[in-house]
């Protein structure tokens, strides 16, 4: 394995509507030692602003390593990477600006709450990004209301006195308060009950559809991926192996099962129908499938 770093500046052709551009991005842990482990190999992709992309793959496939590049928690070793116009091949990209624009919600983000009050916790970002103190409360109020909590009710509470679902929403608010243009979510619904999952996903969809936030969601729940994402990127052993809309990807049932991923229920259903020559319009969830089937039946009876 060549040890020399080959960082390539991003070409100037990166279009303004491109949120993330990666070309042959390669990364090894302990790159300098002989026991270095390749975590990513030749990842090339372009994600446009406003897309809702799901990133899936088995544990250890490189998903987390990849997303940590997006706000330079991991620095570029080989290849090129451009995020919102920041060329990460540069020695000193504007990290503060980048990290403000790329909001990162880690797994179980409620474990990272730390301040005495919800207000302080949510204001930590703006404070460190140098936003004038007079604006903090206004920004926090906006973010806390965005995640569906009552600002006056929670602002002076200790975040540790809230329920699990509320804590997670406060953690989300702490990221959203900086109004990121890209939101990276690492298993945002893990450990939540069905209702909590639904609420978090509704929030993410709202941010994506109404405010145009680009969403990169890492998930192990293929049903959730199918029902929410416009595009699914599959990682396997550090390589990008599929990059397709969910409706196309999950037609490949054998390949999906080979990778120890599940075929979403709605996709499995549509696949059976397709094999029998019945094609439904694009359906994301049970309700849409039901509506499509009712329409089909009505049409055939008429």
């Amino acid at each position: 394995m060549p040890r020399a770093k080959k960082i390539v500046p991003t070409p100037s052709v990166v279009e303004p509507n491109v949120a993330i551009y990666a070309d042959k991005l390669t990364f090894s842990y302990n790159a300098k030692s002989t026991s270095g482990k390749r975590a990513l190999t030749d990842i090339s992709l372009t994600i446009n602003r406003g897309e809702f992309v799901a990133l899936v793959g088995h544990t250890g496939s490189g998903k987390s390593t990849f997303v940590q590049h997006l706000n330079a928690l991991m620095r570029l070793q080989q290849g090129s990477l451009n995020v919102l116009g920041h060329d990460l091949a540069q020695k000193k990209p504007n990290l503060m600006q980048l990290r403000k624009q790329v909001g990162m919600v880690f797994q179980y983000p409620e474990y990272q709450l730390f301040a005495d009050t919800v207000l302080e916790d949510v204001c930590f970002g703006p404070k460190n990004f140098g936003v004038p103190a007079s604006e903090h409360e206004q920004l926090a109020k906006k973010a806390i209301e965005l995640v569906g909590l009552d600002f006056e009710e929670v602002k002076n509470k200790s975040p540790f006195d809230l329920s699990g679902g509320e804590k997670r929403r406060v953690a989300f608010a702490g990221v959203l308060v900086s109004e990121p243009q890209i939101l990276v979510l690492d298993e945002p619904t893990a450990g939540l009950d069905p209702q909590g999952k639904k609420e978090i996903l509704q929030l993410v969809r709202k941010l994506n559809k109404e405010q145009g936030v680009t969403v990169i969601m890492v998930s192990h729940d293929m049903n959730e991926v199918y029902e929410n994402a416009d595009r699914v990127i599959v990682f396997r052993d550090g390589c990008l192996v599929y990059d397709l809309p969910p409706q196309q990807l999950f037609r490949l049932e054998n390949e999906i099962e080979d990778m120890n991923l599940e075929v979403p229920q709605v996709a499995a259903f549509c696949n059976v129908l397709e094999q029998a020559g019945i094609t439904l319009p694009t359906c994301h969830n049970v309700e849409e499938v039901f509506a499509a089937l009712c329409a089909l039946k009505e049409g055939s009876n008429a």
Partner: protein
Amino acid sequence: MSETTQQNVIIELQNATYYYKTFAEDGTAVQDIGVEGVTLSICEGDFVALVGHNGCGKSTLAKLLNGLLRPTNGKVLVSGMDTADKKCIFDIRKSVGMVFQNPDNQRVASIVEEDVAFGPENLGVPSAEIRERVYKALEQVNMVEFAHSAPSRLSGGQKQRIAIAGALAIQPKVLVLDESTAMLDPLGRKEVLAVAHQLNKQGMTVILITHFMEEVLDANKVIVMNNGHVVSQGTPMEIFTNTKLLEEVGLRAPRAVQLSHLLHQAGFAVTDNNTDIKMLGGEVCQELKR
């Protein structure tokens, strides 16, 4: 329920109540309901799924089962022993093994076999027997080949199976899995569930706490909790067809059950409450091609 009447009751809760003590802003003590007035019995060999939204009291209930918490009111009996009776607590904890959500929080040693041996060592089991128990437990979770590995280098599912082996080494009669699959990827979840079902077939009573409704389908009994109370008990099908109940407690039926129920109600000739999405697909094809 004729089947269960013949079985022996292993865990019995009689009006069990647990209040957490917390303090209001002005410093006065307040009682927060953990669980309240829970009466239920679990039989030997049952595979029970315990469901409900976050904070509904599932974990409190689990902790009452082996005396990690003692009921504020009411009684919890394990094989007839009262968890409030301090003399019985060791025997109770030997009968009820627990595995929690995060595999990294329940590791005590840096080598797998030592980790599994921790339980029996503390019970003063003779060392030759410890060895025997450890290997038997590792065999039960299909992890013998990792006996000398470091737990930190294992996958989530493997770590969780080691945690189960640690519980098995105490030779419990009941295994409580408190969201033990929540942090795992699909493969890890599959592995842990397979082990739980395999143990159940060998006679172990299993209590599975989960948010994944698909995992609930294979249980023989489901207990639904809401705000500290048991609001319903029944077979998975009885629970998943009770749409009103599901809505009230914020749960949802598995997608296949939902879709088959919707279609059945709309007059499609399909099996109602079907758990098999492909079979449902087949039925719909038949219907549409007629």
